[in-house]
């Protein structure tokens, strides 16, 4: 009987132990699951939340930064010359001189754009191994004035070769420069060994060289025009002049009617 009681007590203890172990194991598993979940959340969930928060804050900052991130720019728009002339006439009839002048300026700007485009069409699209960059073609003007009409084209070559052609026309400054030139006031000097007078396509011109700007050819022509060519990273004067000779000063003179 004593043995039976001892065995019963032992069984109860064992069963309680077993229950306890089972409960402990469930608790441990639960703890493990919870811990894993916490860790996963810690690693991914919170970061995602943070990322979302960060991203939204970043987006918000971008929106508030005032920095443009989109836009296709302005469409090329030339004034309607006929319309501007008609508007000028109508404004003048009503003695609105300011509006008339504004319309005449618009018309003048439209005409100068057309002149500039014609000159650009006459320029070569490739010079030696350099190709022109259409997006960098430029026509700018302040009307008849100090600066006048400026036409520019840029060429890019392999590696770092660059050529910039600029034509200035109808400018008071160029008129003075031309006067200076035609009066023979240009003096060559041994102080400036990197500049010399040459003849370029039957026109007097000056070629210069500096380490910073490379070769520059200046050809004043007509009453108030100039042709400028700047070559960067050309090997020598011959290579630069060979490129320069692919431009025709006569063509430009004819289009600008400044001979």
């Amino acid at each position, binding site marked *: 009987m004593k043995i039976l009681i001892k065995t019963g007590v032992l069984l109860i203890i064992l069963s309680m132990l077993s229950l306890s172990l089972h409960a402990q194991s469930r608790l441990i598993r639960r703890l493990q699951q919870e811990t894993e979940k916490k860790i996963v959340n810690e690693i991914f969930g919170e970061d995602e939340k943070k990322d979302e928060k960060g991203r939204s804050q970043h987006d918000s900052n971008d929106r508030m930064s005032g920095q443009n991130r989109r836009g296709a720019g302005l469409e090329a728009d030339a004034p309607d*010359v*006929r319309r501007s*002339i*008609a508007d*000028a*006439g109508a404004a*003048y009839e009503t003695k609105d*001189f*300011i509006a*008339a*002048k504004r319309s*005449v*300026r618009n*018309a*003048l700007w439209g*005409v*100068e754009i*057309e*002149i500039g485009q*014609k000159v650009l069409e006459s320029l070569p699209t490739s010079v030696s191994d350099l190709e022109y960059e259409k997006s960098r073609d430029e026509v700018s003007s*302040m*009307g*008849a*004035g*100090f600066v006048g009409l400026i036409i520019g084209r840029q060429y890019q070559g392999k590696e770092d070769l660059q050529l910039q052609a600029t034509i200035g026309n*109808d400018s*008071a400054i160029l008129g003075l420069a031309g006067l200076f030139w035609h009066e023979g006031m240009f003096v060559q000097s041994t102080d400036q060994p990197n500049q010399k007078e040459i003849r370029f396509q039957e026109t007097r011109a000056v070629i210069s060289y500096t380490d910073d700007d490379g070769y520059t050819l200046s050809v004043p022509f007509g009453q108030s025009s100039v042709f400028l060519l700047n070559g960067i990273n050309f090997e020598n004067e011959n290579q630069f002049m060979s490129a320069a000779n692919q431009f025709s000063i006569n063509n430009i003179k004819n289009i*600008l*009617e400044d001979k």
Partner: protein
Amino acid sequence: MKILYTTLISLGLFAATLSAQEVSKQLHEAGSAYDAGNLQETRMALQQTIHELDMAIGNEILKALPATLHNMPIDQEKDNVSSAGDLGLFISRRYAAPENDHYISIEIIGDSPMISGVNALLSLPVFVGDRNQKRVRLGSRRALLQQNEGQDGIHSWDLQVPMGSTLLIFSLRGDMDENTVTNLAGSLPLDQIERLTR
């Protein structure tokens, strides 16, 4: 005397009509040249039209200026309007006292890109270092006033009034104090001048 006035008025009207005809003629020439594809002719006619319009604007400004200033009548011979296309418009008028060599002159250099730079300089106080110079206000405008003393002891004043791309120079010689100078300058139709030269 009456005949002289009538003649002068007739001449003025004739000149105005001639100028009006000139603008219309230039615009017509510009249109015809453009239709014919002659861009350089068009350009020249338009440039000439701007010149004619400048002359018309200059005459409008002269008309807007007072007939007398500080009891001095206009010195008609000194009225001048000249234009060099977009290089600018130049207008001048002088009021002179017949009994002495006191005078007031007004010079307006308008619609010139160069003047914008001068105006910017004038608006910076750092450039006003001379004790004979000071910045004054004419209504809502700032101006630069300079006092000069002539060898004969008579003061003269120069007041430079920047207005957009226009510069008005108001010069006076005579016994006037600073208040008189600024009041006289303030009595000029500055808004109208600015509007016409804009």
